[in-house]
């Protein structure tokens, strides 16, 4: 090994480590401590071992919330990724309309999350909301505050409205990075539009799409504000996703022990799936 190794630059990372320790590692350690104890407040704790973990893992309430969470995340990914790619393909590549399209696409991303929830809540109300009245006027029996199907429909529509833009912008950036000669070569070969998409555009967008899937997965899996403002987890528990259930348990019932155990399980699931996506991304990077 002839290379000179100088690791002094690592000291420049110290402030970041201190900050992360303060806002992530120490709170996470505290959650682990809580997860093995019972507390009734007042700083008094009783050791319970792995009881809460077992309770959460075997609880139907947790299974149902986890299932709802996967259903929600899976559905929005299946809609937002293809829709985002389709919109990006339809957007102009040059000319004055580019900026117009980009600004229009960026708008939903600029709306604060609780405002998105409030907008959609009012928009979808069956008596006074534009969407609610229109759907009922068309003969649909639509009331998201009372019907499970309507609540899910509104929830998914809201997320698609809010976040498809992110996929569009990423896919568009990926498309713009494809050099013109690729298209020229495809034209010379007489390639169909589908062949161009399948063999040039899609492979070239692979990386940005993996990032898009990763970002949308993480964000939708930990989503709280928008469904909380829109439905509050209802009707009943129909739209109680993991984070809403967790907050109910931790702050509503003050069950800090079980809530801490649930947070850790929740965190481990997010960590594992994100690691799989990250690994796939790195593998693709290796290939090119």
């Amino acid at each position, binding site marked *: 090994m002839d290379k000179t190794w100088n690791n002094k630059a690592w000291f420049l990372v110290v402030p970041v480590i201190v900050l992360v320790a303060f806002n992530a590692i120490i709170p996470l*350690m*505290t959650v682990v401590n809580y997860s093995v104890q019972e507390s009734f407040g007042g700083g008094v*704790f009783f050791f319970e071992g*792995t009881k809460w973990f*077992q309770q959460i893992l075997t609880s139907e309430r947790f299974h149902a919330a986890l299932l709802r969470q996967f259903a929600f995340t899976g559905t929005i990914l299946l809609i937002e990724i293809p829709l985002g790619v389709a919109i990006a393909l339809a957007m102009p590549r040059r000319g004055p309309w580019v900026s117009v399209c980009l600004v229009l696409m960026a708008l939903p991303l600029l709306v604060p999350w609780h405002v998105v929830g409030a907008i959609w809540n009012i928009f979808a109300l069956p008596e006074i909301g534009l969407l609610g009245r229109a759907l009922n006027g068309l003969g649909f029996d639509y009331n998201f505050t009372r019907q499970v199907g309507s609540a899910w429909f509104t929830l998914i529509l809201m997320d698609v409205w809010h976040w498809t833009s992110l996929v569009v912008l990423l896919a568009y950036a990926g498309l713009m990075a494809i050099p013109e000669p690729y298209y020229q070569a495809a034209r010379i070969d007489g390639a169909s539009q589908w062949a161009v998409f399948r063999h040039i555009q899609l492979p070239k967008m692979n990386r940005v799409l993996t990032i898009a899937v990763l970002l949308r997965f993480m964000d939708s899996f930990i989503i709280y504000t928008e469904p909380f403002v829109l439905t509050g987890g209802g009707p009943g528990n129909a739209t109680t996703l993991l984070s809403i259930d967790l907050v109910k348990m931790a702050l509503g019932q003050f069950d800090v022990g079980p809530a801490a155990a649930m947070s850790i399980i929740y965190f481990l699931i997010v*960590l594992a799936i994100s*690691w799989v996506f990250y690994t796939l991304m790195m593998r693709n990077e290796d290939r090119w």
Partner: protein
Amino acid sequence: MDLSWMAWTWQTAVFFASIALLLVAMTIWEVLSPGGGPRRGVLGLETTRGDRLFISLLGSAFINLAWLGLVGPSLWWALGLSLLYAIAVFRWV
């Protein structure tokens, strides 16, 4: 410094101390033989020994959770299984 708000127990302290010791051991290993020993294992992706430790720890967490959910509260067998898993990861991944 008053750390009572963190609600420490000796069991969780031992857990975090083991993680800290593992990290110290990994640092010493890295100083003795720098570079992280990158290689391509059975998963078909390049891993360093840091990656292998991460895969071992994350997998062990799930082994223990699965044991708790499916078998019962005694985790010694799960711990043994996790160790075997970690050895396999360090050997073949």
